[in-house]
């Protein structure tokens, strides 16, 4: 188990973002195969594949697809979550930038299976270049008849695809806030089950709505082309297929790596060239929201949902951050909490007030004002946020701090007692050399 390029199979192929190159390499075969099947058979194939949502939560994709009602007269909307806001995660960016047709194809397949009326790709506002690529791919797909009216000659298979740019908020990646934002409202999350119907019943504009991550749709395209069973051959018992991991931090070759589910964490570390600038101190495997893992625990962790969970962390979005021993964990947490404070939408009390309080305490500690009892206070505040907030952002703000205190409590104590960093003169890490430069583009 290690690097397995399924979605990335053609990422280095020059011109793969163009329709002709993509088609030559088997592009849109997934869609071609899908439309020969009954809609339910497409969903069943996704079920066979064992694909789980790649946006972070790992929810079985087929259940969502299957949940879209089959007999409403309402329009059905499909949303691609391309907001990719989780710090440390940049996989969707590369997928859209290099293989935009893979996403368009995946969304067309989902549109077929779920009787979609229209699809919206909600792209993070900063992702200007990926959005150009996607728009270009959409244009080409319309010309080829993969989108639009009576797609591929199938009477009544009408499906439009749009790009919607976000306006710069992490919270808008949370699926219900994304729906608010897409409808032109403030990017606040919405009520969820059991308080309100599921999005597959009432999502945007009170119509059935499917929300999936970029990587999820791309994987669906691969699955329909190669068959669900083929995908299910990879991975572990409950985590199938591959996952793209965005590796960053003190690492020799920061880049996106597509690994088979269940790959030992240390294997990926090795494949990415190993830690640089010092000894390995810790890894955050799934984006800034998940608990940090000390170096000594890493050999027990495999990159799949269950193994990460068993070790007390999460695979999350695959934002894999590597830290060497020059890292001051307390400063890291101060920066992390600053992020969540800044990104809190403000709707609910625990997150709105709690995230700022957390930051203020960490800021005070790292300014030499730490006091006895601060650690307990931090833990207490986290417990008052975790599970009490309106949406997952509050939880995501609490987990890393709890995780960091659990793993590196002595560093917090050191800061509080000595009013300075336990790391000595804190070294700012050098900017990593980018080994895999992304495309530079002009508008399509």
């Amino acid at each position: 188990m290690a690097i397995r390029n399924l979605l990335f199979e053609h990422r280095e192929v020059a011109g793969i973002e163009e329709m002709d190159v993509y088609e030559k390499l088997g592009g849109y075969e997934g869609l071609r195969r899908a439309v020969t099947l009954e809609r339910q058979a497409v969903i069943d194939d996704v079920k066979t594949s064992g694909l789980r949502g790649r946006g972070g939560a790992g929810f079985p994709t087929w259940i969502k697809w299957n949940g879209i009602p089959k007999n409403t007269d309402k329009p059905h909307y499909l949303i691609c979550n391309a907001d990719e806001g989780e710090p440390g995660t940049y996989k969707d960016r590369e997928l859209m930038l290099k293989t935009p047709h893979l996403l368009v194809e995946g969304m067309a397949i989902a549109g077929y299976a779920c009787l979609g009326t229209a699809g919206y790709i909600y792209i993070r506002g900063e992702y200007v270049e990926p959005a150009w690529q996607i728009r270009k791919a959409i244009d080409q797909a319309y010309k080829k008849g993969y989108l639009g009216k009576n797609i591929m000659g199938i009477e009544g298979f009408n499906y439009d695809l749009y790009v919607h740019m976000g306006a710069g908020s992490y919270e808008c990646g949370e699926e219900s806030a994304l729906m608010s934002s897409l409808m032109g409202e403030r990017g606040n999350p919405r009520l969820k089950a059991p308080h309100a119907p599921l999005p597959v019943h009432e999502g945007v504009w009170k119509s059935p709505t499917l929300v999936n991550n970029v990587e999820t749709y791309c994987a669906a395209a691969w699955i329909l082309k190669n068959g669900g069973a083929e995908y299910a051959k990879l991975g572990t018992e409950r985590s199938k297929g591959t996952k793209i991991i965005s590796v960053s931090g003190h690492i020799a070759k920061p880049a996106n790596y597509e690994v088979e589910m269940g790959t030992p964490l240390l294997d990926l570390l090795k494949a990415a060239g190993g830690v640089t600038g010092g000894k390995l101190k810790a890894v955050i495997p799934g984006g800034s929201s998940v608990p940090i893992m000390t170096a000594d625990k890493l050999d027990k962790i495999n990159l799949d949902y269950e193994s990460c969970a068993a070790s007390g962390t999460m695979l999350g979005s695959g934002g894999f951050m590597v830290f060497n021993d020059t890292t001051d964990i307390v400063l890291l947490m101060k920066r992390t909490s600053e992020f969540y404070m800044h990104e809190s939408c403000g709707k609910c009390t625990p997150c709105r007030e709690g995230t700022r309080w957390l930051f203020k305490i960490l800021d005070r500690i790292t300014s030499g004002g730490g006091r006895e009892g601060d650690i307990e206070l931090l833990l207490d505040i986290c417990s008052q946020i975790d599970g009490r907030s309106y949406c997952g952002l509050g939880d995501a703000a609490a987990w890393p701090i709890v995780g960091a205190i659990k793993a590196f409590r002595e560093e917090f104590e050191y800061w509080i007692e000595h009013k300075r960093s336990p790391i000595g003169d804190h070294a700012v890490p050098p900017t990593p050399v980018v080994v895999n430069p992304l495309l530079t583009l002009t508008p399509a």
Partner: protein
Amino acid sequence: MPDNRLTQTEASLNPAVTQMVNIKIDGIELQVPKGENIIESAKRAGVDIPYFCYHPRLSKGDAANCRMCLVDVFAPRRAPDGTVSLAKMPKPQASCTLPADEGMVIVTDSEAVVRDRKGVLEFLLINHPLDCPICDRGGECPLQNNAIFYGAATSRYTEEKRHFPKAYPLAENVVFDRERCIHCARCTRFTEDISGDAQLGFLKRGADMEVGTFEHTAYKSKFSGNVIELCPVGALLSRSYRFKARPWDLHSQRSVCSKCSNGCNIKIDYRLDSLQRINGRINEAVNEEWTCDKGKFGHSYVSSEARLKTPMLKTGGEWKAIDWTEALQILVGKLRDANGSVAGIGGQRCTNEDNFAFQKLFREVLKSNDIDSRVEGYLGSVNKPLYERFGYHAMGNAIAELEDMKTILVLGSQLVDEQPIIYLRVRKAYRFKGATVINAVSSVPEDSPKVGDFAQLELVYKPGTEAALLKGILSVLSAEKLASVNGFAKGYTLEKAAEETGVSAEAIQQAARLMATGKLAIIAGREVANHANHLEVVQAIGDLAEATGNAQNINLPGEDVNSQGAADMGVLPDFAPGYAPLENPGKNTAQILQAAADGSLKVLWVAGAKLLEKFPNRELAQAAFASDTFIVVNELTMTETAQAADLVLPAASFAEKEGTFTNCERRVQRIHKAFDISLEIKPDWLIFSEVATRMGGGGGSFFSARDILKAISAQVPAYAGLTAKSLGDEGVRWNYPDK
């Protein structure tokens, strides 16, 4: 106008009850409607769940934000083998939005819940200024109360608090203390769900989030006062009440707003003899719990310096204060000398008791039928427009019934100004019940809120062409065979209507199609009431209602607080109380003024009517006042009309007397005396009664307002059986005997 229904706060109150489910709250088993919010079920069970953002009249979409109402929930889970077991939901749930479901078990007294509540309150207070000693809300503040009952005794917060300048001028009547805001979104939801102007929203995010208007423009609303009461802290404050009193120093009296015919139930909060503020009082049938700004902020006159405190006599163009003995002596002398050449105008702003005594004095003591309560609009027989054809006079519907309409046509009305509470019901029908609203009006004002903001269709017609518009609609109904039109549209075509009204033919067609099926209510406003050919327009309204099967759904509400009651009490030239026709009808307002102007009227008594200000033919009114007629006016302050009179008698405001008003939907509601401004101020009925007594009684003398109510219920069939007790706090809507 497109369907611009806003979606931020999903418009769903509790769903209609279709099924009952069994749930358990803190060990108490009960049956509740499926889907009811658990916080409401808990109330049924007598279990207190603290809350801030929850409000039963605001939609759920933006609620569940304060997290104060978190509870532990166990839900039944069916195992594959069919056995059902209870499983605890991993996270505590907001009970204010959690729908009740079969078998749910709720725990509100676990250690975890106690801790959650402490946690939320600690968070809410870290940035709260805690300036309770100088906060208007102090003493009646949900945040204080919840902190006392559920909060921790101390805070662990030692960092700097968030600061804002105090008293941000949000609206004409509302100032905003941003530091105190707990971001519950009640005010923002109010503007979106209820008033419909959607002006308040949140700016910025996270802990910097603040309530504001788009681009910090002024919050201009006709219902802004409600957000003061909705705000669970002292963040939104009344400009006029700010720093005026502490809640525990206030006395509160139940009353009814005196500003318009909708009759909002209110509380008068006062200190000694001065009115401090008006708050809404719940009456589900009328105002639910809202008031308009006119009502909430428009009562400062009651305790103002301008109030008349003694009778005033004009001699040689100069005003002189005199005492009541002298005033009554002069007045009675004039009335005796007049020998029947007396007339009375007014009563629409007086109580039923005042009106009853007014007409008793005129008819039975002064022997004159020249009495009329109407100042504007149609002055012919009140039976003509609707009663003779449909059996009712003003409103066919109760206000609350408007919610059940499929379509509502608002015709010739700036509804939000004329009938604010009816406006809110129409808006509720639209937002929460899915009604379609059509607005037909001759001019569209710029500012919101207004019916046009949410009307599916807006027909802007040339002033005065209402009848043509209605006939055009009828002709479409007939041409498209949508209704049996009975020849009502005879001689009319769509094209002709379009040309006369200036409304496009398509719009008229669309309107007709929208009105063709389902319950349709027609609400006509000032443009219809004051129309030169009032009868013709009402005729056309009647035709449309009849053709579509909605003969009982026509509404021509009056505008003054007791327009309806004054007519009920027979302050009309041609009807005794209860619309009993008179053999010798007297003069109506225009004829009375003409008589005065001609010099053929000796005494004119004006009971609180703003004749010079409002009577459409101002020249005639001026001529009447300039004549030799002795004019006596009952008033609160020296209005223009009072200034032009010969004798002005200081009358009590609604806050200083007992009695009843009948609102536009015929609901008879009690008002209660809150305080006396001066013992020299008398309620109108007492003034009439004292004059009657001095002139020999003859049925015009009464001891108290209750005494008069007894006489009313004895004489007026529709008011039969109404007593102070039976009216209760919510009033009673009287009905025509055959309905």
